[in-house]
């Protein structure tokens, strides 16, 4: 019996994958019903644990899984406030006049894309819409390829497609360069030395956008999307503290707490932390995208996690009291 269940589930999934082409959407009423059912199920778990029955960890996984999947079909809008750190970044970007050159460093790879790609998408769309020139580089090998995905996503927007941003004039992808923070250090003297050609082997001097761009002094802002080393810390330490160029960053949530002190000290001009930072940035720039869709799922899952933390603690305390009881 136990072995048949996974087979049936898989067969069902295969059938859907092969033959389904209609999207599933729950009406607001049904969304509420499902939410309440999920809440009730958690109450049942709470009662079970209060009566001393240990629930299996797989049940927790199941709850988290359900709470992540269901909101994709739901019809709720999440209230969302733009936090000061995100606002700071947006304000700094918004102050840039048309034609300003922004260096965008994509320092992440596909595993971190769910968090950072929505930020990248919103940033590139915003830049194209506001006639900001984007110079893309990457300190991680896959970074510039992730940037291309964002450019593609932006071009799919009819308004931006009508503007038709030109490669080499409105944006350029200089590709990846090895050397970690030494690349940033070298760019302080000469971009050309670090990126002699772009991603497609066009020589630096043949790229119209790069004419007149020697070093950080010709750059108005640096936008860094980072998921580790080398990343935001290195950009702050070298680009900000040595060369004085303003840097704003988007980080994975894991890394964000380590980067916050730089925002507090004013070394970093704003920070987008994880999915919530991405969603807030989408709201600030008006480029609603994936992060806003994901945020509902994430909030549901967080509620479930908080619920289980409470359940665990209640069960622990009641369990302790029960163990002590016979002694009295």
């Amino acid at each position, binding site marked *: 019996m136990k072995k048949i269940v996974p087979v049936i589930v898989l067969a069902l999934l295969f059938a859907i994958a092969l033959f389904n082409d209609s999207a599933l959407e729950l009406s607001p009423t049904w969304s509420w019903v499902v939410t309440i059912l999920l809440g009730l199920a958690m109450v049942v778990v709470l009662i079970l644990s209060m009566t001393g029955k240990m629930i299996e960890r797989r049940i927790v996984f199941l709850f988290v899984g359900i709470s992540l999947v269901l909101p994709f079909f739901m019809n709720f809008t999440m209230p969302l406030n733009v936090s000061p750190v995100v606002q700071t970044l947006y304000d700094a970007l918004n102050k*840039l*006049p048309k*034609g*300003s*050159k922004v260096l965008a460093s994509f320092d992440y790879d596909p595993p971190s894309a769910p968090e950072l790609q929505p930020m990248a998408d919103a940033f590139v769309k915003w830049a194209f819409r506001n006639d900001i020139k984007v110079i893309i580089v990457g300190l991680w090998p896959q970074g510039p390829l992730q940037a291309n995905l964002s450019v593609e996503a932006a071009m799919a927007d009819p308004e931006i497609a009508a503007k038709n941003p030109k490669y080499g004039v409105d944006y350029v992808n200089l590709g990846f360069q090895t050397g970690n923070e030494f690349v940033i*250090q070298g760019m*302080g*003297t*000469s971009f050309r030395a670090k990126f002699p050609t772009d991603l497609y082997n066009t020589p630096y001097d043949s790229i119209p956008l790069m*004419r*007149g*761009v*020697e*070093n950080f*002094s*010709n750059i*108005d802002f640096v936008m860094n999307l980072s998921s580790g080393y080398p990343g935001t810390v290195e950009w702050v330490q070298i680009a900000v*503290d*040595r*060369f*004085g160029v303003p840097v704003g960053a988007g980080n994975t949530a*894991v*890394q964000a707490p*380590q980067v916050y002190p730089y925002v507090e*000290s*004013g070394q970093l001009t704003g920070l987008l932390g994880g999915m919530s930072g991405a969603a807030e940035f989408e709201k600030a720039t008006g480029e609603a995208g994936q992060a806003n869709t994901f945020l509902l799922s994430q909030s549901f899952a967080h509620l479930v996690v908080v619920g289980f933390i409470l359940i665990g603690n209640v069960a622990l305390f009641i369990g302790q009291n029960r163990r002590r009881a016979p002694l009295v």
Partner: protein
Amino acid sequence: MTAKLYTTITAITITALSLLLLLIAAPHALLAQSDAVAESPDSATTAVAQVPDLGPILITVEDFPSDAGEALIIGWEDPGYVSLPDFIEYRVTRYTDDSDNGMVIGTSVLNPEVIDGEASHSIAHSYTVAAVFPDHEVISARSEPAMAEIQWVAADKYAVIIIGIFVCAAVIFFIETAKRGKTLFLRRIAGLEAIDEAVGRATEMGRPILFVAGIQDMDDVQTLAGLTILGRVARTVAQYDSKINMPCRASLVMTAGREVIKEAYNVAGRPDAYSDDMVHYVTDEQFGFVAATNGIMVREKPATCFYLGAFFAESLILAETGNSIEAIQIAGTAMPAQLPFFVAACDYTLIGEELFAASAYLSEEPRQLGSLKGQDVGKALAMIAIVVGGISVTLAQAWDIGLFQVIESALRTAFNIQLPVR
């Protein structure tokens, strides 16, 4: 004695010299420096009808501070062209002789300065700045010829160099003091005291002890700290006649681990009880190692688990498995991202520098003890700066007390503090 004094002086001199060299080699923040090399005379504009004449673009050419004579800063005052609707950019052109053959060296929209990073300290350059519009340009007059200058010291970073030399000197001083046999005081560290208790518990329960020295190789200082503590753990294990199991991810760590445990058994007077099988290599593959270690935990059910060294994503996996077998767990790492997991899942955690402190405390090795004490001096300096700075700022602002204003401005100069722009 004299030899040691010479060593100390040489070490301080070398440190100071290397710091100086590093500072010179590094180009620096765009802090304005007052040594203006040249200022342009009134500029003549060549404006075309559609662009309103907002007056001349006045340009200044300054040497880039604290560099090896490779750069000039070309700055200008924007008479208001930036806010005109058709404005494209400011374009800076360099001329190396009197001819009109200039080379565009940079453009800027918002920032009214451009750095010429390829200027020479032997040939004079002059510059023009043009405000560029779709069909025409407003060009400034040519600046006076100027040359880049070489600076030997990064003047704006003297706080860093002074603090750097001070901390390095303190480290060297304490290392030398420790080498001379003076006892350096280190405070007790809670996690260390739990070691005996944890080993004792394992002995009582008749179950083994698991020791993981991180997943990095011997070149990571955290691994070394872990192995130092292993010496102490192994000695207690030998005394109590308990059992220890140490899976390794790197072959060098395995070899070193065996040496450490063998030595500890010798010191405890039980060389016969030692066996090479106590330490064994598993695999270099990160999650392969984790899977194997988890397997050992689940099968052997050690009563106590030590995780001391550099850990990455496996920290929570190990600690959770340890929790599920109800082992006492003592962890220590300097990986900031992994500390929360150890703190949440283990009984004792050596947080960050405590790992090194514990290692220094147990090894009594002069270099470890001395560095730790020297760093304490650095921390004391930071604490004093924060307290004195905070108090003097408050008093100076709130009650206008002259003395505190003096202290405040002195600190601000020392630490290069500007009021944060918000």
